[in-house]
């Protein structure tokens, strides 16, 4: 059995809104192993974002335990959480969140800036390598405004890879992209997954889930479905099937 990257048990998260308490997560448990490509599905209000925030160590659960790569996250301070985010997690956002007017390579270097163990030379080297992995080796010095949406998201993916995280956490990473580009991005994710990178992908688009190896469906703060996908679609093949666009 492969290594457990994520282990959550009876995880609850309550929010107090005025006098009312909202139970966003009502005691969920699951385990994600190394090398999995998991999609977390659910409509809005299902607790998907809350779960993502907790998985990403941006938020703490009200009760229950959460372990990432063997580290118990509960009771860690803000700074310790920041270190975990820095060393173990790669974030990808719907709106890319690249620094404006900053070159691709500098954007990718960003997480390593907060890691004092990485020297300037190593930082640059690793950033170039990450950009090569996402196919942007020829766009190192382009700023976000000079890149297309798909390219910007690739820069963001490179940024998430640069710190060699144990897991990539994507939040609606294809939400802002057209079908063709999202398939391109998904095929990139599949490729990275084949290289052994664990990916957790939060989405509400069912067709995205068909590219992953496992799907967890949330509803009203509970996991209602958790199944392995025995018929994984290849995003590259789907991309080839799309009608050719006129350029």
């Amino acid at each position: 059995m492969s290594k457990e990257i994520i282990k959550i048990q009876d995880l609850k998260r309550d929010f107090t809104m005025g006098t009312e308490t909202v139970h966003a997560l009502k005691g969920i448990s699951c385990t994600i192993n190394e090398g999995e490509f998991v999609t977390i599905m659910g409509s809005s209000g299902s607790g998907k974002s809350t779960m993502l925030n907790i998985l990403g160590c941006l938020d703490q659960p009200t009760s229950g335990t959460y372990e990432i790569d063997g580290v118990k996250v509960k009771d860690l301070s803000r700074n310790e959480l920041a270190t975990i985010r820095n060393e173990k997690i790669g974030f990808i956002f719907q709106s890319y969140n690249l620094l404006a007017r900053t070159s691709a390579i500098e954007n990718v270097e960003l997480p390593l800036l907060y890691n004092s163990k990485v020297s300037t030379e190593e930082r640059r080297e690793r950033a170039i390598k990450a950009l090569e992995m996402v196919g942007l080796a020829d766009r190192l010095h382009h700023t976000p405004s000079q890149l297309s949406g798909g390219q910007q998201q690739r820069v963001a993916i490179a940024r998430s890879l640069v710190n060699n995280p144990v897991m990539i956490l994507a939040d609606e990473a294809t939400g802002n992209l057209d079908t063709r580009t999202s398939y391109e991005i998904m095929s990139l994710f599949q490729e990275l997954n084949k290289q052994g990178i664990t990916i957790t992908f939060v989405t509400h688009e069912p067709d995205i889930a068909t590219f992953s190896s496992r799907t967890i469906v949330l509803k009203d703060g509970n996991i209602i479905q958790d199944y392995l996908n025995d018929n994984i679609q290849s995003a590259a093949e789907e991309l080839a099937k799309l009608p050719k666009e006129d350029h």
Partner: protein
Amino acid sequence: MRILNLLKIAYKAIVLNKLRTLLTMLGIIIGVASVIAMLAIGEGSKESIRSTISSMGSNMITIRPGEDVRGGVRQDASAMESLTLDDYYAIKEKAELLTYVSPLVDGGGQVINGSNNWPSTIYGVNPEYLDIKVVGLQSGSMFTDPEVKSASKVAVIGQTVVDNIFSDGTDPVGQMIRFNNIPFMVIGVLEEKGENTFGQDQDDVVIAPYTTVQKRILAIDHLNQIIASSISEEDAPNAVGEVTEILRAQHKLSATEDDDFYVRSMEELISTFSSTSEMLTILLVAVAGISLLIGGIGIMNIMYVSVKERTKEIGLRMAVGGKGSDILMQFLIEAILISITGGVLGVILGLGATVFIEKFLHWPTSVALYSIIISFAVCAVTGIFFGWYPARKASVLDPITALRYE
């Protein structure tokens, strides 16, 4: 996070907003420049006072009789006769920190040459007077010690006197003049010195042996003053102490009695006059300081906007591992960088303004190193002080909220 990285990030943020940063800096630049220029003007006027006083002999020490109470009536100092020739001899003999000592008796009167006459002051001194006052002769010679001893009727006169009673251009040396009807032979003319800082014409004098003035003009045997010069300017305060000791012993004053004389060095005079210009300097600097404060508030304002504007960036930085302290330092360093750059430009502008004032307004200026150091330090402190609050605000943002901020 390494400081170099922080500097890089801050530098980048500044470069990306050149115009805005420059406008923000403007407050600091103007503040620093005016502090430096104002201090330069203040220092300059202080130095010009100092140099005028120095030209009168900065080592000079003046001893005057003090006021006293006689039979219950307080006497004016000028009416006192407590300074005597014996005091002069005692000082001359015992004081080790003095190089020159001269008695001084003075009196006003009319200088007459033929049909010309002119009101002036006669000073009865000894030949060391010239060294004490740091003045030379433009023609003729000074009277000598034997002439003092014999109370010769010889005089050295200043240029103003020459201009007024030798208006026809004759060489005064060798001519006879009369002062209050006492005939004097002019044996020398003093170098022109012009007015001193207090508007007194230093050339409107007649100088004669003190013995002559005492006996023939004033008919007194006490002295009005004793003037002396200390070995160096630094020795002046000690020399004042030394003279005080000698005179106290000479006047047989007991420990509980006050001095019945005054001993003043030029140093004290300088500080008295400097204090006026110092007041003005403080006022000017206060105004300049206020503009620096306003500059600081400008920085705070812009940092607030910057934090607000970059909320999403802050969220991202936190998500990828930036700690609260990293964010705090980033914005703080940005603020400090703005203020210090503003400080450097302000120093340059201030120095430029100083040169301009000196060149075109002909005001005396002097840039003190401390003014540069102080305004620079104030700049850095301003940056920290006004950058702290916005930076702190950025550092405590919740990464989730910050990331979702639109």
